[in-house]
């Protein structure tokens, strides 16, 4: 099934050409392709396999090995809830559960309106502010379950959010 627009298709071809001869180009190519499309559908991985002269199994093998790659569409806002040690001992799980409850999805899940995806991550490296949540590229420290509805509201719709 053709899911990519012509425009995306052309961009992807350009990326493949850029990495065709590069040593160790598969991982950065997958990263850039994912930035372009938003995730890695089968079609994209097939094109990459063809372009780099690799088996599809090899491409899928690499894509599923790293936690950064996603094989399904994701929400507009990616919520990453830290479950690192510091966050764990300061109540990071309660924060994660509150997100799941408010959005009605589990970790790794995406809301039906494609607004939010929840992920749990091992550590965001901002332990001094535990528990920590990252929404897109913004880090929010010292979270608690009570603060979550407000945080979600600030990202809903197209409202510009505070940096």
């Amino acid at each position, binding site marked *: 099934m053709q899911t990519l627009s012509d425009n995306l298709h052309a961009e992807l071809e350009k990326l493949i050409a850029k990495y065709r001869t590069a*040593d*160790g*180009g*598969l*991982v*950065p190519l*997958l*990263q850039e392709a994912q930035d372009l499309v938003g995730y890695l559908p089968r079609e994209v991985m097939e094109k990459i396999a063809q372009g780099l002269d690799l088996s599809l199994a090899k491409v899928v*093998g*690499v894509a599923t*090995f*790293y*936690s*950064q*790659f996603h094989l399904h569409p994701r929400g507009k806002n990616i919520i990453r809830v830290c*479950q*690192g*040690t*510091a966050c*764990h*001992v*300061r109540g990071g799980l309660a924060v994660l559960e509150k997100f799941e409850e408010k959005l009605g999805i589990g970790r790794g899940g995406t809301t039906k309106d494609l607004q939010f995806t929840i992920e749990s*991550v*091992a*550590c*965001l*490296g*901002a*332990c*001094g*502010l*535990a528990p*920590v949540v990252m929404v897109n*590229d*913004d*880090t*929010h*420290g010292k979270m608690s379950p009570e603060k979550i509805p407000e945080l979600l509201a600030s990202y809903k719709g197209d409202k510009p959010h505070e*940096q």
Partner: protein
Amino acid sequence: MSNKRILVCGGTGCISSKSRSTYDVLEEELRRHDELAEYQLAFTGCHGFCEQGPVIIIEPEGTFYAQVTPDKAKEVVTGLLKGEAVEGLLYVDPVSGCRVLRRDEIPFYQKQQRLVLKNCGLIDPEDIKDYLARDGYKALTLALQMDGQHIVDWVKQSGLRGRGGGGFPTGIKWESTRNAVGDKKYVICNADEGDPGAFMDRSLLEGDPHAVLEGMIIAGYATGAREGFIYIRAEYPLAVKRLAVAIEQAEKEGFLGENILGSGFSFTIRLKHGAGAFVCGEETALINSIQGNRGMPRPRPPFPAVKGLWDRPTLINNVETFANIPVIFSLGPHKYSQIGTEQSKGTKIFALTGKINNTGLVEVPMGITLREIIFDIAGGIRGGKEFKAVQIGGPSGGCLTEEHLDLPVDYDSLISAGAMMGSGGLVVMDESTCMVDLARFFLTFTRTESCGKCTPCREGTKRLLEILERITGGNGREGDIELLESLGRNVIDTSLCGLGQSAPNPILSTIRYFRKEYELHVKHKVCPAGVCKALTSYRVLAEKCKACGICKKHCPAGAITGEKKVAHVIDPEKCAKCGICFEKCPFGAIMK
């Protein structure tokens, strides 16, 4: 450079407390006051005191302002105009309750020895001039006048050991790479900090990227490599950005690229983004990842120094290790080797977190005791609770207790106590942490992150986790503790790489020091810390209950009943064990 500076912290911690807006307000205010034109405003790297963010330092006085949110930024300028410190912005010492004026008077900084972090928080990481003004690239200039073997000898004499956790002597690694034969050689900086609870590499890269580059260039010169890679976590966008800026500036100034400083030596550095796999911190796995494969380790030997990236001799060191190189050059190897203990030289950066008063990043000489770190620097346990344990070294490390508080912190003493330096995460726990649950937490992490290549790690971590889940879930069986011990030792002895070889450490060390807690879980089905839900029940102490109805109002399960003036009751059948009643009760009438 004017000596009147306002340094606003631009580390990830402070930025998330809105330090960028604070900076903007200050910039605007300074523009409106010509009399303050002498003040130079800088957005710096991490000061280490993340919890007090946004942090501001006024030079030359060294006035330290904490929690300067954007709405308070104007007060800073008012203070400058009046020529006096703003009382309300000064840091309050949690132990004495007093306000402290200067950074160097704060206990958090007093016991530190900041050599590697000496520039962090004091320079603008995006301006190479700031680095040069603090003797940056002097080590490189000196190194280029030396013979490569001479440099290797210096590193050996300094006694520096790898800061990534294993503690392998850095000089020997450099020498093997230098002596290895190959048409091309590589230097790799391992910046894939994946330990939960560790952020020292991140802060270094964000706060002083040139120090890491300088160490790498010297390593390239000494080992005969012409190409370098920095393998960095994609989750660190700020560090990536600042490194890219630093590389560009270093190239422009002639410290990187062709014919460096006219020496005839050429060296390039490229960034490689990690894709999120903890095992890639292991050097052979990291090499596989750079080559575009699944990041799986392979047996050693051959070591990367002989056969590494694309089968060529490769030197891999961690971020902090490289950042130590300019320090060795500025002090001289002899003076450097006088810091620390007999077998562990220099300083170590620790990420201090958990139930302590001052969380943050600290650099201390090796050999300092845990007591000094936890009670003097970190200001003791938060909320006046009791110290229970400290977890050191992340998922590879272990837990230490009260009896280890006076243990000198160095590579070997930690290992003999059943823990490990690891990358330097240090998480302090009080009585509200369940040690079995903590072991389960780390095993959940290592099981997910096991690459699956070797059976002991793939299957072993899975089974260990199953047993721990059984215990925390209230179904522990007789013999489970012994099974954890023997299986754990097997996984350590038979796994292929460091991930599996250290994965059981959190279990074995918690059993070693908190066996009683395990026994209570298994035999009596009790979780003394009240963390394991299946083993915790809540009840109301009738004599303390004021029948205020707060718990009843908040209970999401509708499990609490009670009328006015009648002590409330929790129905154990309906109770979801969420603990909300325990938290909300203002009279401490709910018991776990």
